[in-house]
């Protein structure tokens, strides 16, 4: 018998430190943001009257709503690209690379860039994307273009390229994990039942890796929705998403309206996660 029975109060005690930390560090600040978003003044005062003033402002300003749509669209684009790239990478590493050592080496090579800080990784893209950057010079060298083009830096293309490089790994990792746990006998059994490799892929491999895809997509969704640093550094403040707006409002002292945007961002993220979870039962992840 286990020393900790399910309803033993000892097991609750074990969860206490983490619970306190979560309450103090996450739940209380979140509730505080929600509270501030209902302040019906422009000033910072704990005695502000409560009201819907800032929500009404959000509701009446189409620019802000368009920003929500822009953020969601950019996130959707990233999810689509990282889904395909990440799945191909996972399939290659698990299915095509021979030898455990080589697999680990490849995964390490993918992870190494993430040993530096996010800021450095982002800034490192600038010399690549600039008018005289590596990409333009390479294209000129290859004779594909005659003179530098400016579509990379300070553009959505540039932001997207950088974000793809940051977030593809998030989409890859969970798929690698789930795919490795599929017993090879399943694919072999399908082959013995007259399924060609293409059909084995679509009928066996893909359905069985959906939980991994889903978790990866959730990570990408949450991170891209909240990403403001990439847009600031590479978009040159020309392109803003919800995260940038929150930062701008905060810096200009509009705390209540910043909180409203933060709440909108959070609600959108909740809705997205709920939608993803409806697609596939995540609890089946370990049950393969």
């Amino acid at each position: 018998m286990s020393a900790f029975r399910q309803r033993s109060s000892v097991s609750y005690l074990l969860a206490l430190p983490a619970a306190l930390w979560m309450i103090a560090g996450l739940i209380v600040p979140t509730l505080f943001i929600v509270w501030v978003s209902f302040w019906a003044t422009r000033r910072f005062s704990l005695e502000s009257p409560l009201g819907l003033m800032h929500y009404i402002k959000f509701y009446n300003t189409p620019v802000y709503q368009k920003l929500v749509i822009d953020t969601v669209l950019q996130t959707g684009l990233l999810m689509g690209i990282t889904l395909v790239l990440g799945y191909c990478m996972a399939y290659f590493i698990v299915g095509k690379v021979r030898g455990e050592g080589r697999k680990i080496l490849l995964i390490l090579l993918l992870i190494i860039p993430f040993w530096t800080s996010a800021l450095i990784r982002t800034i490192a893209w600038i010399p690549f994307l600039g008018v005289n950057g590596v990409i333009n010079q390479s294209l000129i060298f290859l004779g594909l273009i005659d003179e530098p083009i400016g579509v990379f830096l300070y553009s959505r293309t540039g932001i997207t390229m950088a974000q793809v490089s940051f977030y593809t790994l998030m989409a890859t990792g969970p798929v690698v994990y789930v795919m490795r746990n599929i017993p090879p006998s399943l694919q072999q059994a399908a082959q013995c039942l007259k399924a060609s490799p293409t059909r084995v892929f679509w009928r066996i491999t893909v359905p069985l890796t959906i939980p991994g895809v889903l978790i990866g997509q959730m990570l990408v969704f949450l991170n891209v929705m909240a990403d403001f640093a990439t847009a600031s550094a590479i978009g040159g403040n020309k392109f803003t998403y919800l995260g940038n707006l929150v930062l701008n409002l905060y810096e200009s002292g509009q705390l209540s309206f910043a909180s409203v945007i933060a709440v909108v961002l959070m609600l959108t993220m909740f809705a997205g996660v709920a939608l993803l979870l409806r697609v596939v039962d995540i609890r089946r992840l370990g049950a393969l």
Partner: protein
Amino acid sequence: MTTPVESHRYDLELKGITKRFDDFVAVKNLSLSVERGQFVCLLGPSGCGKTTTLRVIAGLEEPEQGEVWIGGVRVDDMPPWERDFAMMFQDFALFPHMTVRKQIGFGLEMMKRPKAEIQRRVDETLATFEISEMGDRKPDTLSGGEKQRVALARALITQPGILLLDEPIGSLDFSLRESVMLELKDVQRRLGITFIWVTHDQNEAFSLGDTVVVMNHAQIEQSGPPETIAERPRTRFVADFIQGNNVFEGTVAAIEGGHARIQTASGIFAVPVDPSQAPAPGAAVTFSIRADILTSQPTDGHVNRLTATCRAVEYLGAIRRYDLVLEDGRSVKLEQFRSTGTRINEGEKVTLGWRVEDGVLHTPPAGAPA
């Protein structure tokens, strides 16, 4: 050179198959012919190459050398999905995301049969295997025995020429195995499909196989009906591997007529030899006598004699098995029906005997000095 017509005498034919994994030779120059409707058991210890042989037939492993013929068609250039066979895996390999019904229809779906036909045949198959009520369930809700039936139904619905089975009852509870074995044998007889069954369990092989193929170190040691394997082990390995043999080592002292006189640590014994293949005097040889052929009440015909002391008695239902110690310290097994003969007690000294024709001289392993 074999023409297709000739080769179709056999449902399955392997010719000179060799398969290596890096430096390890898993199957070495193996040839095997199986006639239609036969139940063949590949028997051997783990690592002997029996599963690799099965996977070569399936096309899941590619042999370096040799030919594979299924139903008169040479298939060694074909991928698994183009070969005419079905396979049952040791872990059943049921698809966790498909219902039993979907699962069983998978093969027909891959063969692009019309929907209506798939539906009808799945219904029939579910009924045949008495699993109709679990059609909508997923594998993780099935018991071991149920999974086994689903796996068999899924394999047989495509009406394959041969069925390959890789330790198909190895993962079942012991209590289930016997009934499942009988059921599988019954299915095989009714459908007349060739079964190639891989196992390390000799009881399985002997109770099921029309032909038992004993493998060791990547090669076939002996192939034949269960009785022959049990009573006339061709090599020392087979004699050791199959329970109930007493193996003796010795050197040939003389060849006299139809038998050899062999000097062992326990005395000189007469063992029959094939005059055309008789070993030279002085050659090191091994021979065996079955524990159930030895007798503790020798008569005049039992010219080979041993003195031994009983060390332990095992009770095996209708049979008693005695563990006896020879004067040189080696152990000998004796099996007697409880209804015949008197019980030997522990510590009792007995004289064991056997007739000349009861001994089986082994063929030396290939490459060993004659």
